[in-house]
């Protein structure tokens, strides 16, 4: 067997991540757990309080200037079906039937402490910022959508409908509002205070207090305290999390750690990283769609950003590449990956979770 796409992506994540560490600018992919920015914010979602009114969805649409939905937010019949986030919807509330009756759960980007999306993104479009948000920079995004595959919570979505400047879309934690001292739109709108905004450490304390003060009401677990290395959104619930659509198979290791493993086995990939990245870019599905002008623009923007040395390097490489060279690069990448595959097969390769099943669809 050759290289599965999933393995390939894993290495891509690893290669990108490692370079980021060298550059010393992302918290995404270290080989030890990142404890999180000490004062960072998050939101505690107390699922037992949620009534499924969708006020949070409406507020999200409003504060982010998202398109009006086809059906209004007070149409609660939408809760009959399981929905997920899409390019015009950063958050959705879903209904589940648990033993104790209907349970409503709000879903959005969990703003992981060490985000898988950031680990997978080789142009570093995602960054965990000190406020707690995982921010997205559309200017450097090349549209490869590896983040969508990497995210274990199925969050980032893509503007497939936007032919000119499509970008990845996801909840921003209302980063611009937080900077102005305002609460995230959803938190402010929730009539049941099912959403509590605050510093992550204090939210953990609040969650523990609630569990202790109401024996028997909650399962003794704070979802997001450790999942995937910890997330800024935290959840407490009366029903077991697996029964309300939340994955319990994620483990406690951050994405960066998962991808750091195979890296050791394939040092050659690290050495070849610019070539590799260019190769990825070259075989990207969007290649044909990106007009030369757009490409130049992207490159120019990347160059403007002096701190983003890696991107500049990549862009430079891109420009130099002639057609023949590209073929040569492809060959080099292929060889490197095959070699890497053989090396890595000997190693037990830690899985990256979700991507595999996604691919099979």
């Amino acid at each position, binding site marked *: 067997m050759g290289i599965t796409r999933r393995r390939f992506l894993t290495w891509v994540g690893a290669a990108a991540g490692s370079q980021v560490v060298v550059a010393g600018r992302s918290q995404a992919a270290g080989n030890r757990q990142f404890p999180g920015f000490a004062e960072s914010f998050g939101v505690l979602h107390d699922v037992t*309080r949620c009534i499924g*009114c969708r006020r949070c969805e409406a507020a999200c649409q409003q504060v982010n200037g998202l398109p009006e939905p086809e059906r209004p937010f007070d149409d*609660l019949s939408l809760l009959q079906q399981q929905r997920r986030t899409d390019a015009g919807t950063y958050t959705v509330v879903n209904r589940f039937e648990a033993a104790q009756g209907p349970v409503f759960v709000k879903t959005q980007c969990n703003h992981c402490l060490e985000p898988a999306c950031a680990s997978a993104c080789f142009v570093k479009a995602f960054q965990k910022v000190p406020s707690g948000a995982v921010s997205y920079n559309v200017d450097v995004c090349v549209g490869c959508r590896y983040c969508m595959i990497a995210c274990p919570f199925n969050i980032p979505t893509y503007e497939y409908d936007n032919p000119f400047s499509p970008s990845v879309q996801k909840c921003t934690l209302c980063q611009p509002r*937080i900077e102005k001292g*305002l609460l995230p739109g959803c938190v402010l709108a*929730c009539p*049941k*205070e099912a959403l509590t905004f605050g510093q992550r450490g204090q939210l953990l304390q609040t969650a523990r207090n609630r569990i202790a003060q*109401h024996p028997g009401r909650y399962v003794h677990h704070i979802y997001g305290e450790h999942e995937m290395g910890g997330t800024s959104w935290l959840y407490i619930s009366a029903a077991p999390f697996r029964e309300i659509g939340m994955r319990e198979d994620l483990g406690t290791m951050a994405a960066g750690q998962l991808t750091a493993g195979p890296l050791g086995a394939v040092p050659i990939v690290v050495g070849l990283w610019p070539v590799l990245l260019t190769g990825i870019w070259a075989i990207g599905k969007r290649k044909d769609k990106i007009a030369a002008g757009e490409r130049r623009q992207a490159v120019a923007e990347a160059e403007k950003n002096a701190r983003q040395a890696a991107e500049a390097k990549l862009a430079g490489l891109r420009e130099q590449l002639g057609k023949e060279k590209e073929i040569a690069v492809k060959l080099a990448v292929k060889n490197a990956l095959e070699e890497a595959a053989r090396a890595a097969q000997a190693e037990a390769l830690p899985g990256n979770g979700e991507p595999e099943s996604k691919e099979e669809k």
Partner: protein
Amino acid sequence: MVLAFVYFAAGSDQMVSGSGRPDWLTLSISTASTPDEMPPVWFAHDRHTDALTGQDCTTCHTKDEGRIRFAFKQAAGEDYHADMAEFHDNCIGCHAKTAMQGEPAGPRAGECRLCHTPNAPDRSAWTAMRFDHSLHARHETSPRIGPTAEADSANCSACHHRYNADTQTLYYEKGTEGACQYCHAPVAAATPDDPARAMRQAAHDGCVSCHLINQTQAAKEANAKFGPITCAGCHDQSMQAQIATVQPLPRFKRNQPDAVLLATRLTNQLAASPEDRAPVSAVAFNHKSHEANVESCRTCHHASLQKCSDCHTPDGSREGAFVGLGQAMHVADRDPSCIGCHQQAQTDAACAGCHSMTPAPDFAATGCQACHGVAADEQTVAVLTDPDARAAMAAAFVKRRGGGAPLPPETDIPEIVTIGTLSDAYEPVRLPHRKIVRALADRIAENTLAKTFHPTSETLCQGCHHNAAALPKPPACASCHGTMTATPSDGRPALLGAYHLQCITCHERMGIEKPAATACTECHPPRSSTASQN
């Protein structure tokens, strides 16, 4: 020694009635030295009794002094291979004979796996039988049972007995009756150290045998009743539901007190330093009302009918599994403790509206005083050594309790409270305050426990006006619940959350379905056009 035994498919909690058979038994003759070579046999007992109509139990069981022994009679339990042969010969032999007569019959030689299957061929619907207070009352008064000992004038001696280890006989002693489980452990078989049969076996040998005897008797009289004799009769949930309940329940006849003065700690303390009577007040415990409200004596007296403090000494003892008296009474998350059981009672829909919001355990509204109401004064100290005076004192205290909350005059309870917090988007909410107060008061009035623990109207008001001092006009919600900010609070919700949490959660817990939590405009009338112009 090899034992042939029959055991029930245990684990009642996994079994769902109505979707399987209540009568699956597994038959196994395995022992540590000779483990079964095949999976145990799943045996549908009622199917066999139905098929053998006209034959009596002695087809498969022995009769011993008129009572049936519920083990398979041919298997002597002495030799593994001999027992196996007996089972095979008798089961398969009977199946073969039945088949020869042209009747539908069970598996025959060679069809090993039809009997020896790892799982029951059908779901087990076995439900544990609970011998509750009502069922006890029915047996106690049944004219068909009758006493078996001279000392007994009621039916007690028919079931209750004690064991004389020297003579290895059972005898009856009046006034020492207790729950079967105190001696008969649930599943453990009798051992030389503990000759009491397992509860499972004792119950079948005792109950079913007696029902069978009564069945024979009843056959002679028209319409006479007798207890269940099939597995389904006791272990099927729908059959259990058909058992008539006795109302009102008579009290158990064991000379138990009506009221008890619980003063162990005080007594111990006075013994240590006679002058020190400051901190511990005694509890006047209403034994009579508790008796009527629990399933059986075992609800509280879980291991014996001794006083709680005999095992649960103040400092804990081996007999009480080192659970001290204070813990035994107060641990909030255990059933047999006072607080644990009261806490459980608060989950009833009538109570849960207010109580689901208060953190547990909640002593704030009533304080220790609600139970520990008998001050350690001269008068109390004087009665401690005199059982009669003690009981009289406890009774007097109990009698004074439980009047419930006298509501303030109607005019002091605002009829409508108008809340205009969201009036930018809606008309103000008109909260039917007086109606709510009355509804809560009615629910308290229906329940002795609630009456005892809501001695004043303030304890009722505190369901919503929590933490606020009990005042005729409590402070507005907004005095404590402000606007939401990004600075984490002390767990206090902001005003918007406070209102909705209080109202919606209370409605949910009390099972009030209308208005639905998401029907905003049923509480918040939509803003009329004139209003929005203003």
